[in-house]
């Protein structure tokens, strides 16, 4: 009961702050590409607040913030990047609003890859994110947990490192590579063109999606309200529908 009331209150404050004051300018929200589907859906849930969405790799968006091209809100596919930005004094405290699992994504109908261990087979081609972007860094994390020989075998199969998750996914759907390490949500967003193969839990870093208010925003109240709105039940439902997991209690 209390939870519901809180969320209603949060929602109310979001709308009030969004409509009040001088916030006629749309709220600029930069988001990791991997969050595109749910974030676009969530922004449509609250039509009274104009939100301008921009999607790119989390790392590129972080660089943009460092170079002074600042949105009001930054939604990252990893917790690490906003933590660094916070340490540099560029953003506020990160709020984890969802988690994501990593999977091996293959084209629907692919038969030569049936399990994670098939990635070591020679002749298999793989797409990873570039090391600087979360989806690529997570893939490297997974390889780091594997025995050296297996990691080397997989690494030898990596034929391209792409600048963001969407670009990685496209390499699989276009048949350029056989498989990729992607977010479960990317497979969810592919309209059935991709199929997910589970990565064993002991290897799988549960990734955290975090939102931050960018310091220096003209609309700090609206920005904070937007971030709180991500935790509202209907937002969480949109995230769940897109293949994300809710944040855990400790986040």
């Amino acid at each position, binding site marked *: 009961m209390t939870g519901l009331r809180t969320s209603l209150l949060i929602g109310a404050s979001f709308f009030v702050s969004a409509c009040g004051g001088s916030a006629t300018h749309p709220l600029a929200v930069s988001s990791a590409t991997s969050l595109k589907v749910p974030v676009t859906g969530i922004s449509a849930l609250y039509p009274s607040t104009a939100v301008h969405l921009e999607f790119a*790799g989390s*790392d*590129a968006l*972080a*660089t943009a913030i*460092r*170079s002074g091209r600042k949105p009001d809100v930054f939604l990252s596919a990893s917790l690490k990047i906003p933590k660094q930005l916070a340490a540099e004094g560029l953003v506020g405290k990160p709020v984890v609003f969802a988690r994501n699992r990593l999977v091996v994504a293959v084209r629907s109908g692919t038969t030569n890859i049936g399990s994670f261990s098939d990635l070591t087979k020679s002749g298999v*081609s793989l*797409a990873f994110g*570039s*090391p*600087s*972007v979360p989806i690529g860094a997570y893939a490297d994390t997974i390889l780091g947990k594997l025995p050296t020989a297996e990691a080397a075998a997989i690494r030898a199969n*990596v*034929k*391209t*490192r*792409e*600048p963001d998750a969407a*670009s990685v996914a*496209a*390499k699989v759907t*276009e*048949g*350029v*590579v056989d498989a990729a390490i992607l977010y479960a949500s990317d497979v969810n967003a592919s309209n059935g063109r991709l199929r997910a193969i589970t990565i064993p839990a002991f290897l799988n870093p549960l990734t955290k999606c975090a939102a931050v208010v960018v310091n220096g925003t003209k609309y700090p109240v609206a920005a904070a309200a937007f971030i709180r709105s991500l935790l509202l039940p209907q937002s969480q439902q949109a995230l769940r529908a897109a293949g994300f997991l809710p944040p855990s209690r400790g986040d």
Partner: protein
Amino acid sequence: MTSRRLTSAAMWAALTVSFAFVTIPIVAILTANSPAALLDQLSDPAAVDALLLSLECSVIALVLVVGLGTPTAWLLATRRFRGRSLAITVIELPLVLPPAVAGLGLLAAFGPLGWLGGAEDAVGIRLVLETAGVVVALVFVSAPFHIRQAQAAFEAMNPGLRDAARTIGLNDAAVFMKVAVPTVAPALAAGATLAWARALGEFGATLMFAGSLRGVTQTAPLAIYEGFGSNLAGAQALAAVLVAASAVLLVTTRLLTRRWEASGA
């Protein structure tokens, strides 16, 4: 008098704004790092790999563009055939296509699931994820720059020279090789240089079609984009090299064009 002066002042102001608009970002890139830091960034093996790959791919693409594009331009300039203007439009289309569209098109044509994917498998050719795929992307986006210029040069060539060449017994192919190409050589070189500059800067089509892997498909622009997220100084150093190379190529184009115009052929 006053209004004429005002107009003139406004024009000079416009020139100043245009000049500053382009100059400031370029100077900013070149001065983002001290010369020592720049050299240090460029000695990074990944940067060296990217620059060497860019050089290799763009030179191979240039050879293909000149080798195929020059005879193409000659036919377009000298023959009248059904579908000629359609052919010209199609060949020039990559000039105005977004690189992402070029990338999609190349994938749809030459990708593993594309039209010719099966044929490529059959003969053992693979373009995606390979250096050859980078070359294909570069040829696709840069060829029109050369073909357009070459066609214009051949069209501007005194038609009497073709007549004269035929009277000394040269057939059409020999007229092309022995008379037309030497006559418009500076214009051809200018077109080739422009195509080269475009190839050096290619990003979107390369990424979508060939991918991005250090030493194989990651050209300098792709390395710049990757560096943007993780190593800004390194990206700026690579960018400075591309700025310098582009400037050299552009000046070369201008000099060649001037020489061509002075030759009056």
